[in-house]
């Protein structure tokens, strides 16, 4: 019915937008084929769920490495490869090499793209030179390079079809997020919240690499692409200058709100969903105001970029709780009614469920019981503070003051969950969430801004919550009620992306390097294997030649490599204590390998 409408009402337009229809339909079709993995999060809804079930709860204990591949790079390996047809496309951290591997030939390299980038981009990447992966559309592979170049490569040959520079590393602007293809455009964000970079979402035409629109996280309405009457927050129009009115002077120009996470898309509503990161600087005293629209869930029109609705989760952030984590789209029943939902596990420790059409807030609960910077989220629609966190004064780094060490704040700056993405299984209607279980002492102080230099303004030290020795949990979460269903403790933060499958198995990786498989219903561990290095990548799966494969990148690093690679110290240890924590460095060293598992072929 929809296709008919398109043809009859938009016949002429369709001639000019044939490219759009083709790319959108092609990708939608491809992402429905469980044998392939054609986009970073498996599908537009970002569920990281596969219909493949050759591997199931009964036989997963028999899987073993089937083949492996080294990227040649020893930095933090985030993201996952794509599989399109018989070819696997694999990316690497800086220098961001792209490999096309022949699945018919044990991963023989069909082509390799090695960008030449100025190494001076490296020191302006706050948290290792990671890259979160590739996208595909219309015969092209898209790579978002560290130096902010977006390049389209011919999927068959690796030749550059077009290339465009999105930002300026000399100002601290860098590229780490994967590009996303929705309709006729490829979307990228920008990194640099620790360098005062004002965040944006750029939309480029697939065909020719021209910039179609760019929506900023802060600034006048013409920059943020907000309509004062039509853009709503929790059902109410946001009004004129909703961003700039919440900053002092020109501070919004170096305001942060960067966009380096995962993006999802609802083709029926024509909306793109993503989150914006922390406001700059980490010292809240230097930026009075709510700092909109940092820490915000955005719903933007895919064609024009206009914001349909926004919701700021952590106004006037005092803890670096970036809002960039994935927005998982599901259709579930709440109070007996079918709802179109968006579920988001924020750095701030709250799991939010919203109506993705209207931005109505339905559920907001802690997904780590130890979260203590807020007691909850105000759910009283009549209250002027509706939707705002109920902050605990003692955990306010600003209330405690500059040069005062605020102690025991949970979660730590790296959040109850960082970028590592969760998965959703329609079989169990549960989310599978890799979490951090870490608290911090945080002390803000005055800093000065200079372009291309870190603009942080706080000291922090991190440790597990008092009474616990585990620094991570892998949990199952019910997004309809906001409850933890089961929780598997892990010694270190779980920093990998999860994968849920129709075989009833959920996969994730640990910072020591284990790939683990657990029962989706109970969390019982069914299999584990120690890969060559700690895992911060995302598990994916595909089928080839009648066999199901599960693949994971190992290569420790990223922000996990900072906070945890050297071990953490307990506040209860005396000065100069020897021992302290079992350091991650006792378990793993650098690496850069893809390990691909399968059931034995007999």
């Amino acid at each position, binding site marked *: 019915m929809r296709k008919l409408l398109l043809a009859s009402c938009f016949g002429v337009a369709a001639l000019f937008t044939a490219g759009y229809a083709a790319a959108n339909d092609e990708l939608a079709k491809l992402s429905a084929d469980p044998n392939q993995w054609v986009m970073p999060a498996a599908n537009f809804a970002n569920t990281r769920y596969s219909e493949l079930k050759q591997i199931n709860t009964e036989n997963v204990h028999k899987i073993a490495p089937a083949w492996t591949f080294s990227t*040649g*790079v*020893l*930095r*933090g390996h985030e993201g996952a490869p794509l599989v399109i047809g018989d070819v696997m496309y694999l990316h690497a951290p*800086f*220098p961001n*090499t792209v490999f096309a591997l022949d699945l018919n030939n044990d991963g023989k390299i069909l082509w390799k793209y090695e960008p030449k980038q100025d*190494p*001076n981009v*490296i*020191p*302006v990447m*706050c*948290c*290792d*030179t990671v890259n979160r992966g590739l996208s595909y559309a219309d015969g092209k592979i898209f790579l978002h390079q560290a130096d902010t170049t977006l390049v389209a490569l011919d999927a068959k040959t690796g030749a550059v079809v077009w290339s465009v520079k999105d930002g300026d590393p000399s100002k601290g602007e860098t590229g780490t997020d994967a590009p996303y293809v929705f309709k006729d455009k490829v979307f990228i964000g920008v990194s640099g919240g*620790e360098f005062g970079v004002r965040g944006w979402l750029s939309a480029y035409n697939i065909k020719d690499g021209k910039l179609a629109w760019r929506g900023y996280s802060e600034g006048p309405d013409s920059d943020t692409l907000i309509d004062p009457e039509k853009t709503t927050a929790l059902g109410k129009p946001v009004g004129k200058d909703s961003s700039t009115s919440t900053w002092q002077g020109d501070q919004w120009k170096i305001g942060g709100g960067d966009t380096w996470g995962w993006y999802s898309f609802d083709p029926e509503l024509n909306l793109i969903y993503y989150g914006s990161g922390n406001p700059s600087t980490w010292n809240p005293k*230097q930026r009075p105001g709510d700092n909109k629209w940092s820490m915000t869930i955005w719903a933007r029109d895919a064609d024009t970029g206009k914001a349909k609705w926004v919701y700021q989760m952590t106004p006037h952030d005092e803890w670096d709780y970036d809002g960039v984590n994935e927005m998982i789209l599901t259709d579930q029943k709440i109070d007996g009614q079918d709802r179109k939902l968006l579920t988001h596990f924020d750095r701030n420790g709250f799991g939010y469920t919203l109506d993705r059409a209207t931005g109505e807030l339905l559920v907001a609960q802690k997904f780590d019981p130890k979260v203590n910077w807020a007691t909850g989220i105000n759910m009283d629609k009549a209250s002027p503070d509706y939707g705002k966190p109920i902050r605990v004064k003692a955990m306010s780094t600003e209330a405690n003051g500059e040069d005062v*060490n605020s102690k025991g704040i949970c979660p730590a700056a790296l959040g109850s969950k960082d970028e590592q993405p969760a998965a959703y299984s329609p079989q169990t209607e549960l989310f599978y969430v890799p979490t951090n279980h870490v608290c911090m*002492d945080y*002390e803000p*102080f*005055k*800093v*000065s801004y*200079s372009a*291309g*230099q*870190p*603009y*942080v*303004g*706080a*000291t*922090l*030290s*991190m440790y597990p919550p008092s009474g616990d020795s585990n620094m991570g949990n892998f949990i199952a979460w019910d997004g309809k009620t906001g409850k933890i269903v089961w929780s598997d403790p892990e010694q270190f933060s779980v920093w990998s992306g999860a994968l849920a499958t129709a075989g009833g198995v959920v996969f994730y990786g640990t910072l020591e390097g284990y790939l683990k498989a657990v029962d989706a219903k109970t969390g019982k561990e069914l299999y584990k294997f120690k890969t060559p290095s700690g895992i911060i990548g995302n598990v994916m799966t595909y089928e080839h030649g009648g066999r199901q494969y599960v693949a994971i990148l190992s290569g*420790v*690093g990223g922000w996990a*490599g*900072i*906070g945890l*690679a*050297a*071990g*953490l*110290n307990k*506040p209860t*240890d005396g*000065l*100069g*204590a020897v021992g*302290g924590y079992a350091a991650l460095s006792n378990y793993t060293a*650098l690496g850069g390998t893809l390990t691909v598992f399968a059931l034995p072929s007999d």
Partner: protein
Amino acid sequence: MTISKPILGLGFALAFAAPVVALADMPGDPTAVKQDDQGLWHDKDGDPTYKIEADGTVDWYTFSGFRRYNAACIVCHGPDGAGSSYAPALANSLKTMSYAEFFGIVVSGRKDLLNGNDLVMPAFADNKNAMCYLNDIYVYLRARSTGAVGRGRPDKHAPKPQAFATAEDKCMGPD
């Protein structure tokens, strides 16, 4: 003052045997012997150093260095100088690095380009958040490198000298 024979002999041997540069790269005896008018302690060679009292109270600069290091340097070099997966543990590096060499690297940056495993440190010369506190950061890391200060925030510290506050405001500039 008479120079005793063994020392004379040593001096003679060193002058001919060892290049002066190599000697200058090693930090000397870290014992604090003199405090300047900004409250910073110096060792006998005149280089900044730490002073820890018997009860563990650290001097102001060591404490300040803990904070400033864990804000400006932690993103690459890890907490408390313990290193990360992509930058060395400075608590270790300072065992064999002099004040002059440390200063030079922070000011100018450093590149080790290893064909895909490049390590690049930026120049901090224009970054007040580092340069205004460079002595503090050095003193803190020096204390970490000798084991005088362990992981974590020092429990007790001497108060901030007034002269330090004045110099800090001057260096950092207006808000």
